[in-house]
């Protein structure tokens, strides 16, 4: 997966490049409008992650040129503004998704993946780990061609873990992924725990291997 990160904030650019390179993506970055528009004009990307608040222009104006270059390129807007207007305008211009700062890189990764599957792989893609196969289209999990029944949330959780494998994922990150960031003042970490334990049991029972490790005080880590 070839990704361009347009982000003017060096620390955030560094975080994203660091994480996504480790995930095996081909990453490039641009820290302003002009650098970004040059890269967009010269190269093809599977996905462009676009911060719209750039020092020398609105990232919004880059969307049409990305679309013109290749209609298959997924565009994900990142904004500090959390503005519905921006979101609607961006989506109208041809962006595919919208994430508000501050975000978890795991969440961004999940969005990138979904976008990549949808736009580049056109949905025809299966995720494989060990003897497990996930079919994202039917949202089902198979172990040696046998379907393992998962609840909706267990499935979401599994996908989140697989996409962010070998990464310590914190409880708030999981909670935000499953429930969204609407539930402001709700303590849903207990619920995270319950779903996680159920998923863990199912995976262990089927394969005899414990994929999800608890990292003391930090969260959970999925290793295939």
């Amino acid at each position, binding site marked *: 997966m070839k990704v361009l990160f347009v982000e003017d*904030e060096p620390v955030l650019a560094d*975080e994203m490049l660091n994480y996504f390179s480790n995930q095996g993506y081909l990453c490039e970055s641009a820290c302003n409008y002009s650098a970004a528009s040059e890269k967009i004009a010269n190269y093809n990307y599977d996905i462009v992650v676009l911060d719209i608040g750039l020092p020398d222009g609105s990232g919004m104006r880059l969307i049409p040129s990305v679309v013109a270059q290749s209609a298959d390129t997924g565009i994900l807007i990142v904004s500090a503004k959390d503005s519905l207007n921006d979101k609607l305008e961006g989506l109208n211009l041809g962006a595919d998704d919208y994430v508000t700062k*501050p975000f*978890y890189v795991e969440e961004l990764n999940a969005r990138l993946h979904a976008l990549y599957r949808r736009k580049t792989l056109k949905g025809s893609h299966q995720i494989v780990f060990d003897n497990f196969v996930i079919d994202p289209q039917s949202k089902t999990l198979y172990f040696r061609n046998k379907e393992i029944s998962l609840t909706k949330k267990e499935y979401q959780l599994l996908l989140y873990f697989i996409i962010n494998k070998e990464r310590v994922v914190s409880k*708030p*990150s999981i909670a935000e992924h499953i429930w969204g960031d609407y539930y402001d003042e709700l*303590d849903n970490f*207990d619920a995270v725990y319950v*779903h996680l334990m159920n998923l863990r049991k199912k995976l262990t029972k089927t394969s005899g291997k414990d994929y999800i490790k608890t990292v003391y005080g930090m969260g959970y880590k999925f290793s295939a």
Partner: protein
Amino acid sequence: MKLLTKTSLHYFWASLLLLGIFGTLLFVLLKKEISLEIKEQLELQVDLIGEKLNDGATISYPLVDITKVNQAYQSNFRDTSIFDRKQNVAENYYALTEYVNIKKQTYAVTVMTTYIGWNEYLETIGLTFLGLSLLLAVTGLLVNYVVSRQIWKPFLQNLATLKNHSLASDNELTLQPSDTEEFEELNKVLIDFASRAKTEYHALQEFSENSSHELQTPIAIIRARLESISQHPLDTESIRYLNDAKTAIERLSKVNKSLLLLTKLRNGHFPDVQTVCIDKPLLQHIEQLDELYINRELRLKTSIKTSCTKASPYLLEVLLSNLLSNQIKYAPKSSTVSISLDDNALIFTNAGPPLSFEEDRLFKRFVKGKQEQSGAGLGLSIVMQICKLHGWNISYAYHNQLHIFTIRFN
């Protein structure tokens, strides 16, 4: 007391005082003038009697007394009283005694005339004046009412306009013009005041919005770095410190997001308003929160009918999630919570002890219960603003140990 009543009352007391003074003055002057006139008349009478005496006539008139005296004195004009046989009362009289010399004999001639009923005069004048002052006051009052109604009309209308005017709205303050100089001046001052207050309000709004924006990126950086640190093996102590920092940044992030939303709500621009059926997202949210009900052993009673209205789907999500999490958070373990929706209203009910603060502060920002640690107390304030924006009416009641939130769609 109304201004009109006040001025009328003042007017009445002033006219009473003035008329009192002038009544007294009138009485005193009148008395002096008439006494003088009577004295002159009596003097003339004495003169005429003197003439008759000189002619040698015998004088015997009623109320005239002539005595021979040895010596002449200063003439003397005085009040006296004579018993009125007919009326059976002592009547006051004027008496004038003058000494006349006729053919070397001094006579003391005393003439008298009735003292015109001064008491009656006083009474008549007093009553007339009291009547006059009353009449003046009443007339003044009537004139005031009729004229003032006309004059005060624009003022009262403007007062009503001002009562409903909100600095947050985009509408400029428009006031009824008046041909009364003071009111026109007041209007000018008010319009100027409102526009200045509005400018300041918007500046403040912009400030809070900008500061929230500016905070988002540093928060994002801190959070990203803390997550990166979490990827490394750490000792127990460092983990504890790191977790405290993460919890704090989580809270900061949520507060900041809520504040950002609140400023946007007050700006009131939500372009995604469309007809939405509330039951669908409501049921979805309830399903999403499924395990939280189970976890807290809450019995959920629902009565949800299809109900569609014009709303921003985005804000509706925020509203529902806030009310639902509020309900789950505050319902005591193993209690019953209920949600009902129909065309008129959306009602959330949960049990619980009464609020630890005054009811009217419930929807205010940063208000939370005594024991509460998490959350900034912005949720209900956001709910309130969303209702306001859609023209819905939200109310809270505590009844039979139940907290009831009712949103009425109009």
